[in-house]
């Protein structure tokens, strides 16, 4: 992509396109991938905090035996919403935030392939979250667990599908689950298409696939997984919706339905989903470790191909979530094997990360601490994962706290530590300010210690037989001490995040000026200003090698360094100088229509719940938005 000059079009639209790219209103119409990335982060972090508060409530309830802090019903709603929020509205979109902000910068592009689709994706995601949480005001949140085994989740007091209405209050709650996740799935699908096309099609000249940063590779694999996993859960959710709302019989055994079908479809999506969550963190770590070890990444090719292998193999292990269903010895043995095999590419990555640090000049700055923490914690989680692959063990461990411990080591110790490493690493690029190191380190240690206190003991609790999803437990089971420790750990994590929020608020305006390349980094985003201009690069870089930016900085051992830098017009300083260059670069105008089109979708979802009239109203709004989108001129003439 060497120019963004749009073809001027004849004819016009009834509405003027919004032009403002600054100010409060611009956030509603923006199609700049960087602003959308920031929106994604802020929203996802809000949901993440909500999920964290839910976790604290759960841990408070479990801190001692026979607690009556929460009722059983509240407990069920809280753990369901905790899982849903963290997976679909917290950690996954935090990864999306990073993709959105960094993807074009790291491949030397000015924008993503479909800027307005990007905006649509954000708004649909936001509305999906609001829709799901609105259930709290409308009869109660979903309470069937995040994997919502059908038909258990729909069988309330009344038989399934008795009328066109809902069989019970509980099934109405699960309608929020079905519809909310369908909306979130639309958002994921839109961004997956966008990222795939951007990566494959919009790389800077010379950036071949094998010269791409590992983070971009992991974005690509993640997007492909989303592209193929979302429709599978989508179909399952539609079927659930038809069962609950319209009396269909997909999961109703009385009329031929098969409850195990739900489990197959759910986990055929659910296992790739685990990798959708963890692969972005793998990518982040692969960028952070070399920079802070001052060495090239060890085994780039091995890391890339093991990531691709995970992308394929992630599809072949879903039934290890279902050993206890009774699929028979052949299926169990096959999935036990495939599950053990998938540990291999992950192990390759871990050894490559260790190899990267080996013999390096390690700088223990906050991003590096989180990166090392991620490698360590994820390894523990990976090892307990292998124990699940052994079927007889699995029978013992399934639905106990051992599983909870395992997936928190993987999802929290892996994904969240990785995302935090990325946040500290890229914050200077986004804001042009450094984060406070002392607060950052305090955050890290609170989080690391709190995390191990919270989830380490759950291994023991699980092996002692404490089931998951119990609202309380009796005294005298030997579970009291470790539950208390876990609760204390939970509050320590929360304290760590409080420090993080303070750090962000403090550093946003008051941090030390960062400069363009504060970490002496390797990838293209550090070759532009911090924060980057709207058009990212004054001149699109030409890439000659992997780690091109780094190689040029240290070209022929020249200590004065010749950074990969735009030759035109002294663009080293942002603002006035760059303005001249920027004048000729035309970026697409902001647009109202993504917001309009997205707004119709939750209305349709409410329509499914309440009255078909709303489906029609929402449908008309969405279609009108899409038509406005298609018909608006691609650019006003200047």
């Amino acid at each position: 992509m060497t120019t963004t000059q749009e073809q001027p079009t004849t004819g016009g639209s009834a509405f003027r396109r919004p032009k403002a790219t600054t100010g409060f209103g611009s956030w509603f119409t923006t199609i700049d991938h960087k602003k959308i990335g920031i929106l994604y982060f802020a929203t996802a972090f809000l949901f993440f905090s909500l999920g964290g508060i839910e976790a604290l409530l759960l841990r408070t309830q479990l801190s001692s035996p026979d607690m009556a802090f929460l009722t059983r019903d509240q407990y069920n709603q809280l753990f369901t919403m905790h899982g849903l929020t963290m997976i679909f509205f917290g950690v996954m979109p935090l990864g999306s935030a990073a993709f959105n902000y960094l993807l074009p910068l790291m491949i030397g592009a000015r924008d993503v392939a479909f800027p307005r689709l990007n905006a649509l994706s954000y708004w649909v995601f936001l509305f999906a979250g609001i829709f799901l949480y609105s259930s709290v005001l409308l009869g109660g949140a979903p309470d069937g667990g995040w994997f919502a085994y059908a038909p258990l989740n729909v069988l309330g007091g009344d038989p399934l599908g008795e009328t066109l209405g809902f069989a019970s209050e509980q099934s109405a709650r699960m309608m929020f689950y079905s519809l909310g996740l369908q909306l979130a799935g639309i958002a994921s699908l839109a961004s997956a298409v966008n990222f795939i096309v951007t990566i494959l099609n919009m790389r800077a000249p010379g950036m071949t696939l094998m010269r791409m940063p590992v983070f971009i590779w992991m974005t690509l694999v993640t997007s492909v997984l989303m592209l193929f996993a979302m429709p599978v859960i989508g179909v399952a959710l539609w079927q659930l919706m038809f069962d609950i709302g319209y009396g269909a019989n997909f999961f109703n055994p009385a009329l031929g339905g098969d409850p195990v079908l739900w489990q197959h479809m759910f986990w055929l999506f659910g296992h790739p989903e685990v990798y959708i969550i963890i692969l972005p963190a793998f990518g982040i770590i692969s960028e952070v470790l070399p920079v802070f070890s001052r060495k090239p990444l060890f085994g780039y090719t091995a890391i890339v191909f093991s990531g691709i292998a995970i992308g394929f193999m992630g599809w072949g292990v879903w039934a290890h979530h279902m050993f206890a269903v009774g699929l028979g010895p052949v299926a169990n043995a096959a999935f036990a094997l495939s599950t053990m095999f998938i540990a291999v590419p992950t192990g390759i990555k871990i050894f490559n990360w260790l190899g990267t640090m080996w013999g390096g000049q390690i700088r223990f700055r906050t991003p590096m601490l989180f990166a090392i923490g991620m490698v360590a914690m994820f390894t523990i989680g990976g090892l307990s994962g292998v124990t699940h692959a052994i079927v007889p063990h699995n029978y013992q461990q399934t639905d106990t706290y051992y599983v909870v411990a395992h997936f928190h080591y993987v999802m929290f110790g892996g994904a969240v530590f990785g995302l935090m490493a990325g946040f500290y690493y890229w914050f200077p690029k986004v804001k042009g300010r450094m984060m406070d190191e002392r607060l950052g380190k305090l955050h890290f240690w609170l989080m690391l210690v709190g995390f191990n206190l919270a989830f380490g003991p759950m291994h023991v609790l699980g092996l002692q037989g404490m089931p998951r999803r119990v609202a309380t437990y009796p005294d005298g089971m030997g579970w009291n001490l470790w539950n208390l420790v876990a609760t204390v750990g939970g509050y320590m994590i929360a304290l760590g995040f409080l420090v993080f929020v303070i750090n962000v608020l403090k550093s946003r305006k008051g941090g030390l000026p960062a400069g363009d390349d504060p970490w002496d980094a390797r990838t293209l985003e550090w070759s532009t200003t911090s924060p980057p201009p709207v058009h990212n690069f004054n001149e699109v870089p030409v890439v000659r090698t992997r780690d091109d930016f780094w190689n040029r900085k240290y070209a022929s051992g020249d200590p004065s360094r010749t950074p990969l830098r735009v030759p035109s017009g002294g663009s080293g300083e942002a603002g006035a100088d760059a303005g001249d260059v920027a004048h000729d670069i035309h970026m697409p105008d902001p647009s109202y229509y993504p917001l309009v089109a997205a707004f119709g979708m939750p209305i349709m979802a409410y329509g499914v719940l309440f009255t078909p009239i709303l489906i029609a109203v929402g449908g008309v709004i969405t279609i009108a938005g899409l038509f406005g989108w298609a018909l608006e001129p691609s650019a006003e003439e200047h």
Partner: protein
Amino acid sequence: MADATIQPAERGEDAHHTSLGLSNEKMGMWSLIGSECLFFGALISTYLIYLDRTADGPGPSEIFDIPFTSVSTFILLMSSLGMVLALAAVQSGDMRRFRVWTLATAGMGSVFLAGQIYEFTFFVEEGFGLTTSAFSSSFFVLTGFHGVHVAVGILMLLGIWAASLTGRLTPSHAGTVESIGLYWHFVDIVWIVLFTVVYLIPAE
């Protein structure tokens, strides 16, 4: 796939250099189609699993009217021809002919949809509804979703028709028409699979 012949039109359309030489629109559509394959794959698997779960309701061989569906299938497949002619028209710059064929394609899609609505109403009257059995649920959801896809395709066709009226869509945007054409052909191809799996195979 290097489309040497369409290249000039695409260059005019977005003036973007792309790494793979394929327009973003087309690659986005291919990605979406890849995703849709799994969507229909999951629906078809469900249908096949539930093929004999009729719960004493009507089964596939008792209820389907194959001659009727064959006619509407024929009309839907002919609409692909209309799509091809619309694309050829816009590529040769004949916008009037483009509008005629776009509307004709949308019209044939609508006839197919009308046939499906008639068929559904008829089935429900015969006592074969969404709630009858697991088999009936999977039939209606599978073919119903295909119908929704046809409806979305019709909306897209009306969109490019309207865009060509306002001058937003010109012969330089043939790539857009081609992408929508990909979607339309894909929906038709899915129907070939569905017609075979749902109507023809159980009739044996």
